């Protein structure tokens, strides 16, 4: 009797292992757990057994039933998973098909580089101060220690308006005077971004308009050594931790001493390449200690205050960073150019 049950259990489990689709599973259920299955018949006929065998047979019979039911549940899960998997297989995609194109807006490359410059200087405590693009001759030149007819004026090719004494600013330096006059005698740390204009032929290398970001720090203890450290910090933030800088004497009428700042060419690592014209260095900044006359024109006593100023061209920096060879791309606004940013 009990051996029969053992055999039945083994047979049923073996059969279940063979069932691999819902049909076979249903048939198995019918065969081993259905109403006319031998196990059901056995359990239904328990009462016909001798009383002494009944408890043991009943216990064992129910045991087998539970085992088969549990096995069925497991089998059902296994087969459902297999069926689902099979169905999913048929839904496979060609993952190399292009994604749905969304319209992505972009900032102009000049805005991008300006924002990067703003962010670096903001962290160093320099905030943004803006002044007009159309300027008085006085602010653009005279107050910056460049008197009328002075040979230093040759350094800037200027657009004049038909209004006497009004011009398109050739640099953001007039903002120095505006800022100083607004804040003197309080110490000052600002950057002066904006569009500048030069009377120049439009070529791959020169444009009639371009951005400039000028910086100015005035205080009771600002030194040339501070200027060097500040610009070296900026260069590292802008061009990478390892960026080396070198400082060359130069001349700007509104600073003294004046200097030109080069950063080691990040294209060739200083070995020499066409971008740095084989010098290993890229000119990125003009700077210097604010000229005493300019400090005085701004409302500071040059005996008590000192300051430094610097200026850079965002488009030039963007050109160096991205290897852009033609400055005309910036205002040309060809989408094939703009969409690369």
């Amino acid at each position, binding site marked *: 009797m009990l051996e029969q049950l053992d055999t039945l259990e083994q047979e049923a489990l073996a059969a279940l292992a063979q069932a691999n689709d819902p049909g076979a599973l249903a048939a198995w259920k019918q065969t081993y757990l259905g109403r006319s299955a031998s196990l059901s018949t056995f359990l239904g006929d328990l009462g016909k057994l001798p009383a002494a065998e009944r408890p043991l047979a009943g216990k064992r019979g129910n045991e087998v039933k539970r085992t088969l039911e549990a096995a069925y549940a497991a089998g059902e899960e296994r087969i459902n998973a297999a069926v689902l998997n099979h169905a999913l297989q048929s839904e496979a995609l060609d993952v190399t098909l292009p994604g749905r194109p969304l319209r992505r807006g972009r900032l102009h490359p000049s805005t991008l580089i300006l924002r990067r410059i703003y962010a670096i200087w903001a962290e160093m405590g320099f905030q943004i101060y803006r002044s007009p693009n159309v300027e008085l001759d006085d602010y653009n030149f005279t107050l910056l220690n460049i008197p009328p007819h002075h040979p230093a004026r040759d350094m800037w090719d200027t657009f004049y308006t038909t209004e006497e004494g*009004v011009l398109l600013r050739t640099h953001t330096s007039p903002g120095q005077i505006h800022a100083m006059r607004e804040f003197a005698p309080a110490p000052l740390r600002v950057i002066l971004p904006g569009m500048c*204009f030069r009377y120049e032929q439009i070529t791959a290398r020169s444009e009639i308009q371009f951005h400039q970001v000028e910086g100015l720090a005035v205080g009771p203890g600002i030194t040339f*050594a501070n200027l060097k*450290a500040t610009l070296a910090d900026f260069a590292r933030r802008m061009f990478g931790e390892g960026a080396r800088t070198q*400082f060359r004497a130069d001349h700007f009428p509104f600073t003294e001493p004046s200097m030109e700042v080069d950063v080691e060419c990040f294209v060739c690592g200083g070995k020499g390449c066409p971008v740095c014209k084989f010098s290993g260095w890229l000119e990125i900044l003009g700077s210097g200690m604010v000229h005493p006359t300019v400090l005085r024109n701004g409302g500071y006593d040059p*005996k008590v205050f000192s300051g430094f100023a610097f200026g850079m061209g965002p488009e030039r920096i963007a050109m160096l960073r991205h290897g852009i060879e033609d400055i005309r791309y910036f205002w040309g*606004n060809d989408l094939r150019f703009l969409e690369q940013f």
Partner: protein
Amino acid sequence: MKVPLSWLKEYVDFDLPPEEIASRLTFAGLEVESIEYIGLAPQNGHIDGLPGEERGPKARGLAWDREKIVVGRVFEVLPHPNADRLVLCKLDDGRTIHTVLTGAPNLFPYKGQGPLAKPLKVAYAREGAMLYDGHQPGNVLTTLQRMKIRGVESYSMICSEKELGISADHEGVMILPDDAPAGTPLADYLGDVILDVKINPNMARNANMVGIAREVSALTGRKLRPPSYLFRASGEPLKKHLRIRIQNPEFNPRFTAILLRDVQIGPSPAWMQRRLSRAGMRPINNIVDITNYVMLETGQPLHAFDWDSLAARASGNAVTIITRTARPGETIVTLDGATRTLDDFTVLVCDEKGPLSIAGVMGGAETEVRDTTVNILLEAAAWDYLSIRRTVQAQKLPSEAAFRFSRGVHPAATLRGLGRAAELMRTLGGGIISRDTVDTYPRKAPVVRVDLPMKEVRRLLGVNIPPRKVAQILESLEFVCRVKETPARRRRSGKISDDDLTLQVIAPDHRLDIGTGVVGQADLIEEIARIYGYARIPEVQIADLLPIQRGNPGLEQEEAARDLLVNLGLQEVLTYHLTAPEKEAAVYPPGMEVPAAEYIRLANPIVPERRVMRCSVLASVLETAARNASRTDRLALFELGPVYLPSGKPLPAEPVQLAIVLAGPRESRDWRPSDRTPADFFDLKGILEGVLSGLHVPSPTFESTRDPRFHPGRCAKILVGGTALGVMGQLHPQVAARFEWAGHDLLAAELNFELLRPYLLRQYPVHSISEYPPVLEDLAVVVAEDVPVERVIQKIRSSGGEIVQSVLLFDVYRGEQAGSGNKSLAFALTYQAPDRTLGSTEAEEIRTRIIRALEGDLAGKVRR
């Protein structure tokens, strides 16, 4: 300025390689823009694109192999047996005799003369020498190879200047001076390095060999060896024959002159010609060359008059030189033959009959030195640099002399230049120098003294440089220094520190750029830093306290708008702020009267299409749309930037405008079905609503309007709080056509950003979210076609009250069921209270209120 190092070495010894000299000058503010090698090899690196590494300034030139290119001596020129246009030269190269084939026309005159009485010295290249190809344009390297030309074997050659890389001249072979020793490597005899030094306005004093030599001396510690300015004068005194009258000493502080008699005009010696050409000046004759040479050497430009022409004009009287400004309408014929009308600021050198020369700029034709000139009046004067500069610009007469005078030459330089030139003319031109110099000096240049406290040096540079070092630097530039104790407050300790010392400095008499007081101190500190070396000044973080921090709200507003527009899928463009009125007028349909705009105009436009400052950003963005039309069917552009409007004040107003242009299908073409319907009015409106809501502008509204630039029925003004910010809509088809978008709908918006600013709040409130369930219901209303949807929505909101959370229009129907002249609007409404669940009665009440309002006030008909 071109500085041949072979010349520079006359005034200062240095054994550093040329590249090192170039680098030191560059770091000291005299940027070497290029290095030209004549026959010599650069220290390290390559030239002219040859492979190899190069650091430092641009270099060009050709190195002459010392073994293969030498001085040769041609002692006989024979005809070629088979060719009329070739000759055979007998040449001694210091080792042996060669027969060299050449077609150089300048050797033909010697053909068949037998052994030459005076052999010719030439540059001789042996087999295998590397040279430039004389027959090819530009500089193409070639190696000299053995070959047969017309039956005669050739393995070497006599070189032209072009083949040696000295100049572009390939007309004939180069003839060397007779003293050239045959067999000597040509590089030793002729080799040179020329630095091209950029002279900044503050370095005018260095636009001469002595100036550069002084810098090299200061930068290397080697002694400066200026030329001698002494001369031997034995001629008749000049004083009784010449009077000087200076009418405007402010323009002509000093005028000096000397007379040379019995000068022989002829070519200048080879060494002088060589130096002049290497410095970029063409040799002419000994007198002109000497004036140029001395100008390049000392920085003092000189002018030579033909004395006899002056004397003839004076008709037997003493010559009277008058310097004055030009009279109205006055003219002069300059030595280039041009008749020039002069401005009232132009300073002239005249005699009693009229102008002789434009002071410091160009001589007159009548009194110039000619081949027949015998007696020379040599002028060395000082002129006001500003008036010279104005004249140079007005007359468009740049020259080496004008370059120097228009940047400032110290009056003390006159006598140095005069003496040096007179002595050279005497020794090289055989003249006799007048026993006296006429020197009129009505406006003495002040002696510039500056007290430089050592404390100031430290205050500005941030580094301690010992006083002794500071003094040594200044003395190396010929300043005179004396160290003194600063006459300051009594010191607590008896010790004297560097800070208690002051340098009393006197500027040398070649400098006009040193000021007085604080400015003079800054001028000196620049010199100290420059020569001390910027690299030696440490990098020190700012010690000053951080000033009060201030933001820039205006810029932040603009950047916020940019970010929103980019997030909405638009591409930012930045365009020219300079334009032309007709370009801006193109945003109006053809034939339309364009509203007159007042422009800020340029006095000196560089091109006509950029002659005014723009009044419209939209026109610029449309130009960009036009430029991209051929390459894309779809664009969404914006620009946020200033326009320039006359303000009644000297400076224009620069209000910021926002312009948006939209065109083409909503979605780009794809492998799946995409929405290819063209963007329309409502796409643009959606963008504007997105930007305005993103900026938290309170309830903007759109109102139908007319604008000649736009489609008459598809244009709206944008209102916020009763202010019209701008217009938007579909551009007039004729305008679209003007901007290369014919047949397409071009959507555009133009907003005055300044009017928007008052509504851009730094803070805005956020409402709490109701925890009670909303009631959702649909409502369809039929209204007359001329009732704007905006009014219907407002009516729903105003009648429903605050409980109406959202009003979403989900259908607009026109047709039979709505009746003609009507439209049916379907809304999904959400009612929600912040503090309770709405009951059905309350919802019904709200609905009833809304229906009553729509039917009563708008004559609508709500479908029930």
